[in-house]
């Protein structure tokens, strides 16, 4: 499994093909927007009955990543559960599975807008986390620096050889990193959306998920590349 290595505020980080972030120096794995229990929440609220396998699928991915990087600390960057009731209402086998996964790891739940409070699942519950030079929170704050967040589920399109390929992506500039959504049942927000292009700097790049992840200039980044093309 090849990752994409980069430096943010002096921290050497690796974007993994799955959408997780690895910080080797801190033996830490960061994932955002797991949205566990999404099918259950939609059904509970009277929506459609989606295939109830997304929690299993997401935990499978997470387990594979934790083992691959031998993580000591797992940091879930918010919206880990589709809502707080979903966190309490995981079916027994899935709750057991999560407990086994948590055992032996320093596990941190950061609050998200979907899960704005502690759950009964153990681990540490925090509104935000500072680790070394970096701050971790669910939603990026305009003007912050050395910040790692999630929330927006960024994705990007690339046209290559006559095909258009859309992929989830990390967004990265000098000041911040935004993680893609990790959960199985998650959609994406195109990174040329004003909500994202307004946050990221002119030099931002999007790291498309895949094995290996591939960096491109962030589509929609301010003042890129029109002026560049015209000056050529």
């Amino acid at each position, binding site marked *: 499994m090849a990752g994409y290595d980069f430096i943010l505020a002096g921290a050497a980080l690796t974007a993994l093909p799955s959408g997780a972030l690895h910080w080797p120096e801190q033996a830490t794995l960061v994932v955002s927007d797991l949205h566990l229990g999404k099918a259950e929440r939609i059904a509970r609220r009277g929506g459609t009955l989606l*295939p109830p396998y997304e929690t299993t699928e997401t935990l499978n991915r997470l387990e594979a990543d934790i083992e691959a990087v031998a993580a000591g600390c797992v940091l879930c960057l918010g919206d880990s559960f589709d809502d707080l009731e979903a966190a309490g209402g995981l079916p027994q086998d899935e709750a057991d599975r999560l407990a086994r996964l948590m055992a032996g790891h320093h596990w941190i739940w950061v609050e998200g807008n979907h899960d704005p409070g502690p759950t009964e699942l153990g681990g540490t519950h925090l509104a935000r986390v500072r680790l070394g030079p970096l701050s971790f929170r669910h939603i990026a704050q305009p003007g912050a620096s050395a910040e790692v967040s999630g929330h927006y589920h960024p994705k990007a399109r690339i046209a290559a050889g006559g095909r258009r390929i859309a992929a989830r992506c990390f967004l990265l500039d000098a000041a911040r990193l935004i993680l893609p959504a990790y959960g199985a*049942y998650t959609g994406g927000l195109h990174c040329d959306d004003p909500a994202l292009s307004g946050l990221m700097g002119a030099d931002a790049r999007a790291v498309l998920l895949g094995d290996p992840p591939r960096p491109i200039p962030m589509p929609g980044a301010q003042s890129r590349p029109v002026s560049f093309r015209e000056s050529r």
Partner: protein
Amino acid sequence: MSGLPAPFAGWFASRGWQVHPHQREMLARAEAPASLLIAPTGGGKTLAGFLPSLVDLAHGRHRGLHTLYISPLKALAADIRRNLTRPIAEMDLPIRVEDRTGDTPQSRRRRQRADPPHILLTTPESLALLISYEDAPRIFSGMKRVVLDEVHALAESKRGDQLMLALSRLQTLAPGLRRTGLSATVEDPEAIARFIADHPARCDIVRADPGPAPDIAMLETAEPPPWAGGGGRYAVEAVLDQVRRHRTTLIFHNTRAQAEIFFHALWLANTEGLPIGIHHGSLSLEARRKVEAAMVASELRAIVCTGSLDLGIDWGDVDLVIQVGAPKTVKRLVQRIGRSNHRYNAPSKALLVPANRFEVVECRAALDAVRENDLDGAPRGPGPRDVLCQHMMICAAAGPFDAGTLYAEFRRAGPYAALTRPAFDECLEFCATGGYALRAYDRWQRLMQDADGRWRLRDPRRARDIRMNIGTIIDQDTLKVRLRNRRGGAPLGEVEEAFAASLTPGDSFLIGGQVVRYEGLREMVVEVTRQVGREPKVAVFMGVKLATSTQLSERVLRLLDQPDWPALPAHTADWLRRQREISRLPAPGRLLVESFPREGRAHTCVYGFAGRNAQQTLGLLLTRRMEEAGLAPLGFVATDYATLIWALEPLENPAQLFSRAGMAAALEGWLASNAVMKRTFRASATIAGLIERNLPGGRKSGRQATFSSDILYDTLVKYDPGHLMLKITREEAMRGLVDFGRIEEMLDRVAGRIDHVRARHVTPLAAPLLLEVGRVPISGAAEARLVEAEAQRLMREAGLA
């Protein structure tokens, strides 16, 4: 005028009209449980359908709804209302007629439920909505008759399946209901009769005089058709000449994109400024209405159109129909020809324009078939279960139901007459709990069972969502196209989201016959400016590409298998003779496979004559098998009659490649991870209610909250491969886009008789395939390399790497 009650006989006489024998017969059969009238356009078909109702209502004693009329087109419902209102007014009959479609204002719809008219004109979707209301029994219990218009078109689609389920429900509410189907000429009237019958009762067929044989020929042009392609642009001058010589000409095309290109070319050649319009399903409603109105007012000399004008309003002034491109099915050709000359006793006049050299052969075969009145068509098979699931929820919205009673009711519908109880129960399980094998969700269900065993909605408020999601037409994701700075103005039309995303500012494309320049995307609207005189990049419109029918393909094969071709134009006969010298011609009951080297690639051409979709699937399966055999295939292209594959290594033994077991195994492996399956899944899952539609207004907010249906498909394949939705998807794909049935048919027909010709260079018959668009590259690894190269280029360009 015998047989007609006084006011009617008088009315016919006052207009100087004869009652057609089939109109009289339909009246005589008024009490039959179901009858199907097959009549050509212009034969007074609609009046024949309504006469029994008008006669029965003339005494003025009936209260409430008497007759329901259902048409596949909203516009037709409104048109019929106008046409019925006239005789009713002139005979001073005490009959109220109203239409009800998606365009009817909410206030009137509410009033129609409280106080229904005697005759209600509507569409399958509006009817489905009506029967979902709790007061449906009150509205429908006194109803006497139902008239199904253009039922041949409905019988080919899920809209028809849904309609037949709705009729079963109506039959339960109004047991004495009589059914009347009105159909254009079809190959198998018995199949339509079975479709509309109230099973196990029968449906009788009444055949009107088909009228005189059509006057139909191939259009002669100065230059021969090109070797490949599908637009028919070479024939623009000859077509324009025909337009000049007729009052009104309909110019049919097989795809919207081709219609756009042709219209543009026609417009450039139209120096004298003849009024010519364009009409297709991607144009805005306003644009289409304008063209229709101009047509009705006889202001247009020609309309370039697609299947959007296959049905609908009768335009008496059309005296010529031109079909550009091979008609693909004889039946559709005959129906299109019928769009000209709606006077009953005059022959329809039509011209065929083959778009390329091979289509000359296909057009010739189709002309012969029309002359022999040998129509084609494939049986549709049992009704799909995604529609069944939707209808079950509609029934639940109306009120609690007993499963056994509902099952019996469903089996009265033609498409579901052979539905088994286990198949029904599977749908019920899906509707109630989602039907997931690995997890029983007793905590949350959509349907619950009462103490008395009846099923009801767990949450009655969900009836609203069910109603919002009614319908079996699945829209592609499209974006409106508007002129910049005209935000209030009417949109020009729609393009697919995928096409819009591929545009960069400055690109130009055709829409509604204009060349426009893409300026940008603003709040999900494609903004454009007008651009004059530039060669456009053409809009890619989706839509199913119709495959040439089995029967027409066989005719083409028989036509090729002749000593010589006096009936074909010289240029085409010469081409076939050359093929015979260099290679050989495809023959019925055999499979021709040609191998030849070209530009360092080993080419293989397989003449399966299985229709476009099956030939496409064949390409995917064969390349998969060639990959396994180490032949390193690079790509392929498919047409209705052949698939051309290029590879690094030459093919030595085609017989091995076509082994049935090997083909079936390749299919299994390929189906699981396939874009066609995902597209089919999305449609079926939306109809069945697993996915809710993107409703208007719900689109802008929180796009990251919605996720692709592909994810659901992948999840089911991985964790619940036996799930009902996957079964339905497979059934649908097999008869639709994958069309594996026709590959099996071809293998049966050929039964191992493979003629493998090794030529030194490209053969005459294979050459046009080299020019075809729509090449499919096949390597997954190649795609990864492309992305890598493009990513690096972008990074360098932006100075980031």
